[in-house]
């Protein structure tokens, strides 16, 4: 606050202008998405790049919700994303805790292997993945997506969780164990409550990653019943035309869960929960 007060009004104005420009720049595509979604089909091309359409309509939303398979896609995406986020976070939390707190044989090797998996472009392994999933008879199932997404997200999530655990002083668990906890009790009663922000962040990241994934979903899912939302969006593109209005309306609806999710976990993302534990 002091720094702000001391700097000249000009600098402050400049700072806020720069921020405002950045926010406008980042949010403009979202605005355009929403704008087209509420523009009547007839006006999309005739009004061109007008910032505000002359008439509004919610017809697109109605059509998407009632006359397409959108709700099915939506449900499928929700199952896949929540499943992936939950499984990944549980495994990553356990692995991250082990990396953070214990020394065991092969620790460096496992970390190296996990890093190596992140080095390959997805395109390279998509064929073998397809083959494996096909052999398992899991093509066209949501399970296959959950398994594949979980496998791909675990390394990143593990390192994320490890850094959160690293941020919790070891003394706290020691104090807990001296106070009468077993190691597991100390983990549950002391470390876990302090890791909630970390768990929230990890859940959020993995959820959004799974929610918007297209490549594997496109490869492994063909039947309409098991399509996830990004694949489903493509059905709005037909041979002869693109249903822009409906596609954008679907896109707006697809943003809803991500937004809800982040609003929900936002309070756990507040930094500084461990303040006061140890001398800072």
């Amino acid at each position, binding site marked *: 606050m002091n720094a702000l007060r001391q700097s000249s009004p000009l600098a402050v104005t400049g700072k806020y202008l720069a921020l405002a420009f950045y926010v406008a720049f980042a949010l403009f595509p979202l605005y355009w998405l929403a704008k087209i979604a509420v523009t009547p089909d007839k006006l999309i091309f005739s009004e061109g790049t007008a910032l505000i359409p002359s008439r509004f309509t919610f017809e697109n939303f109605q059509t998407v919700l009632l006359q397409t398979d959108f709700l099915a896609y939506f449900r499928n995406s929700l199952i896949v994303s929540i499943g992936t986020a939950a499984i990944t976070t549980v495994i990553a939390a356990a692995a991250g805790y082990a990396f953070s707190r214990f020394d065991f044989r092969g620790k460096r090797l496992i970390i190296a292997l996990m890093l190596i998996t992140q080095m390959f472009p997805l395109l390279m392994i998509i064929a073998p993945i397809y083959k494996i999933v096909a052999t398992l008879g899991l093509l066209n199932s949501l399970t296959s997506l959950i398994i594949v997404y979980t496998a791909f997200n675990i390394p990143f999530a593990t390192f994320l969780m490890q850094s959160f655990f690293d941020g919790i002083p070891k003394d706290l668990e020691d104090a807990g*164990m001296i106070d*009468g906890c077993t190691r597991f009790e100390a983990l549950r009663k002391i470390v876990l409550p302090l890791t909630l922000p970390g768990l929230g962040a990890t859940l959020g990241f993995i959820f959004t990653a799974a929610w918007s994934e297209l490549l594997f979903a496109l490869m492994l899912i063909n039947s309409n019943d098991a399509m996830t939302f990004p694949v489903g969006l493509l059905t709005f593109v037909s041979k002869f035309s693109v249903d822009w209005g409906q596609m954008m309306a679907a896109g707006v609806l697809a943003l809803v869960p991500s937004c809800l999710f982040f609003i929900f976990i936002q309070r756990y993302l507040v930094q500084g929960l461990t303040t*006061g534990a140890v001398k800072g």
Partner: protein
Amino acid sequence: MAGIELNNIAKSYGSVEVLRDINLTIEDGEFIVLVGPSGCGKSTLLRMIAGLEPITGGEFHVDGRRMNEVPPRDRDMAMVFQSYALYPHMDVSRNMGFSLEIRKAQKEERSRKVGDAARTLGLTSLTERLPRALSGGQRQRVAMGRAIVRDPSAFLFDEPLSNLDAALRVEMRLEIARLHQRLNATMIYVTHDQVEALTLADRIVVLNAGDIQQVGTPLDLYERPSNKFVAQFIGSPTMNILGVDQTDHGVKLKDGTILDVGSRGEQKRAHELGVRPEHLDVVPEEAAHMKGVAELVEHLGSDTNIHASVPGVGPVLVRQHGHFPLKTGDAVNIAVDLEKAHLFGPDGARLAA
């Protein structure tokens, strides 16, 4: 209730030996201070007693019961950490009562014990605060409160005062001393601060590089240090160590002055002379053993520290009581209190008087 016994305790990480052959018996109700420079293994030893570090060699007994493999929660010891280690998501009273909560004590018992401890430590008005809303000194008190509530068989302190400012440190030191008098419990206290060690301890254990150098009362260590390390570690300012040669009439300083230190056991091997700054005196020229120049004079009010340079001998620190009118650059004539000087052999061991 707790007599603690360490027999040949050793600790190594792989091939790195950090402690070896630690033998120590701690009486019930005794206040033991483990002191030594950084990395001497004192905190590791404390953590081994607490059960937080596995013991890799030797036997650890409490009241005759072998404790090597007993988990920390069953050792009935409370520990105050250097970092305080308060649970950040619990308020002060829950922090203090957490051990009782874990042991499923009755609610009334819990609040009574927490209330008692809070009153003792002057925390009553803060019981509903979270640790992050407390000052350093208050956090320190809560950490102590958490230990008191336990009513443990032994208290372990791991450099509890080193994160506090100087004034608060003195205050908390007194509080810990008072606590020991009141509870009369066994306390093991780790510090690198020799003032804390000298003021608090019934007995001090001086550690260096994984070995016990000496165990004794504060006065023992001050008056009869077993070697040069202890002699220099205990006492402030640090003892002067002057190189000497053995002669038939006493020891000879490097500038040729002979000091008659009387006959001592194995005087033949005398290699260095140790004399504390307070056992040197500024005297008239004819009574002096050493003649030097004051390079720096520190006036502390209660004392005056004179950093003198003696040609042929080296730097010598003299401490005079009260204000001593001397300026930088003045000549100083120094006499040695030979009764209180120590002789050290080439291996650093003190030669008995």
